[in-house]
């Protein structure tokens, strides 16, 4: 059984240790300290991802769907104590701990909590407060693109929905909070829309290569299986957090024929593959994507063999970044376990993600529709102009 494997247990122990560190450390920090991340050496975003996908089952997916019911606030016990000073980072970490919530949803919920606890009396004051909060959030985990994109999107919304439309400040405030609470629903709906849009592209008898675990890609494949499409999935292993194993596990439960590959077997199997499906941690302005390590080389191989590469990503992952090459991004480091001791002289590449340039992507499936990569910059320019 995969979850009993030695390297996985060690990975998980490390993750848990790191997570504990995460939850304790920020309590004594406040907004005045811009970068209280206890372990700046590793990427908090990828740590949480690994931890979440360690517990991924169809049960939590069901929970996730139930959570977006009529009650917009499923976990009221997470509210911060009234006597404790409010910290946006605490709030964010509370939300982020729930595995069914996307990172951007957690960010926007945290910002909504800022609005709720705010003492501001004018729109301008509120905006400044929000700006401070979102800056501190962004600097707390600079490696998380969805966090940055979510904060930016919400800030943009606040600025545009200024008091012009609402004479009353309080009603504007309650409207902002209401929209932020609804964002979980928007994110959930986005996944449904993407799954629907991509059904046309999955034809009977096709073979799909997927890389890592992506909630959206899983949703797409699940819907295709429910629509009685006959297809076969190749899952890469997704070292080192082995997210591919988890995806294959889930797909097997849906009775989808699935084959596991080690990450280095992609080129070997590519001639059997009809299309590559990947998720994205972030979609950048060039139309390229930032995703789990290994996506770039899969896209290169697929391009070399003339296979389409489809990306499934919600539109709130569109980020205002324009990386020119792989090293242009702040590296998101994570621990990698090789199973054997590595001599200290040997350097280890520990980055968790890579950048896939747009020319290697065929189409993006987003909740805005099926897009070519060049549409991304168009959307971003429209939003931030």
């Amino acid at each position, binding site marked *: 059984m995969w979850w009993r494997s030695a390297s996985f247990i060690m990975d998980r122990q490390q993750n848990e240790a790191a997570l504990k560190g995460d939850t304790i450390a920020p309590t004594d920090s406040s907004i005045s300290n811009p970068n209280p991340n206890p372990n700046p050496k590793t990427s908090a975003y990828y740590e949480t991802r690994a931890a979440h996908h360690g517990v991924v089952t169809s049960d939590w997916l069901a929970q996730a769907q139930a959570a977006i019911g009529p009650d917009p606030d499923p976990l009221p016990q997470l509210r911060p104590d009234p006597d404790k000073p409010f910290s946006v980072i605490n709030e964010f970490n509370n939300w982020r701990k729930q595995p069914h919530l996307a990172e951007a949803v957690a960010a926007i919920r945290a910002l909504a909590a800022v609005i709720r606890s705010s003492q501001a009396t004018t729109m301008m004051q509120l905006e400044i407060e929000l700006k401070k909060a979102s800056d501190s959030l962004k600097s707390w985990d600079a490696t998380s693109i969805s966090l940055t994109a979510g904060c930016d999107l919400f800030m943009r919304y606040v600025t545009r929905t200024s008091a012009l439309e609402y004479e009353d400040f309080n009603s504007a405030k309650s409207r902002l909070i209401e929209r932020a609470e609804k964002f979980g629903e928007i994110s959930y709906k986005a996944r449904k*829309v993407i799954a629907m849009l991509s059904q*046309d592209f999955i034809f009977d008898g096709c073979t799909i290569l997927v890389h890592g675990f992506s909630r959206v890609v899983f949703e797409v494949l699940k819907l295709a299986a429910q629509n009685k499409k006959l297809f076969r999935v190749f899952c890469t292993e997704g070292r080192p957090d082995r997210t591919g194993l988890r995806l294959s596990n889930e797909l097997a439960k849906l009775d989808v024929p699935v084959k596991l590959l080690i990450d280095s077997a992609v080129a070997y199997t590519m001639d059997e593959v009809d299309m590559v499906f990947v998720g994205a941690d972030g979609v950048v302005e060039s139309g390229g994507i930032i995703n789990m390590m290994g996506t770039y080389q899969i896209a290169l191989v697929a391009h070399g063999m003339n296979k389409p590469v489809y990306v499934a990503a919600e539109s*709130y992952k569109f980020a205002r970044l324009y990386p020119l090459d792989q090293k242009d991004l702040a590296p998101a480091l994570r621990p990698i376990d090789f199973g054997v001791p590595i001599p200290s002289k040997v350097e280890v590449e520990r980055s968790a993600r890579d950048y896939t340039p747009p020319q290697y992507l065929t189409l993006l499936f987003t909740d805005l529709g*099926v897009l*070519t990569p060049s549409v991304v910059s168009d*959307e*971003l320019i429209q*939003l931030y102009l």
Partner: protein
Amino acid sequence: MPDVQALVNEFVNLLKKRKIEGSQATAKQTAELLRSVISHQRVPHTNQATSLINAVRAVGEQIIDANPIELSVGNIVRRVLHIIREEDLSLVTDAMAGFGMSATSDDEDDVDRDDQPALSAAAVAAAARSTLRPPSLQTLLEDVTDSAALPPTPSSTGDSDGKSRSVEKGTRGRKLKHDVIEAVNELIQDITSCHEQIAEQAVEHIHQNEVILTLGSSKTVFEFLCAAKEKKRSFKVVVAEGAPRYRGHLLAKELAARGLQSTVIADSACFAMISRVNMVIIGAHAVMANGGVIAPIGLHMVALAAHRHAVPFVVLAGSHKLCPLYPHNPHVLLNELRSPSELLDFGEFSDLMDSATSLGSLYVVNPAFDYVPPDLVSLFITDTGGHNPSYMYRLIADYYSADDLVVKQRPTTGS
């Protein structure tokens, strides 16, 4: 409306027998047919737009089925549906502006609207207008109603129809129909004049002493080349004959009659000639949403040759050829297999082709179209100007509304 049904049947017949050639003629006749459908449609007092949309959809379904390969039929049906939605919306907006505040509690599920009666009519109108626009990042946080999840337009406009009815009953019905017919007339005008619009841009693209390669014959290309010639450009044209229909011969003849130096080559000589060519200009059958082109057979080969030698590959297409669909499986879905008589004369090899006997082992395949993927196309020239293949989505968003992409109303079972 029996006379309309007769018109529809006649058109369906013509389409089925492939009697209408060329996407421009098809597009124009489709638009004219839909115009008469709309003008004969009796509109009730409520839900006028919905009844018009349903009528157009019903007819559209029939004529799309009659010739699914001629994508311009579907394009025009979708354009007309979009026109109806737009005109209806602009009428509703006008009416709301006239009323002032009475229509604030629109049926959109917004909590704030109820406790905000002073919301301006302009804001309501803006919200209504945004339902026509494709979803974008800007509106992501604003509204929960999702265009893909449910078609909100007909119901919401129908509702406000009911409200506005009390004030101006008869005039509005006639006005909507009148406006729609007016807009369809404009559309027909656009289709007729698209050749001139495209040809106007010719001098910007064709330069002195250039060599242009084209394959087969397309009216758009002919007009384009002639327009450049009329503006005193001197250039040479290489025409690949376009087997098996050899329409390239006709084009070369017509060009020579206009005083343009033209050379006829065999299709198989394209690669040999391409290094001497400055630009490839062709006409398309249809342009897909990803920027791929459905073009007469043989053009994929030309496109690959042009790509190999870095020769610009320019596609001329009127906006009626712009199709909002994606070619999921282009090799199978969007092709027509024409009669073998274009390749072989009757009687030739007929003993080998007799499938009844065991000797029948010779088959003839005569596909009509090629799919040229978007990365082989350098530029599209439409009646609105030159565009990159990756820009096609924007034109599509302008011309079609997202609700109309699937014209068929019955649920398709997983195709």
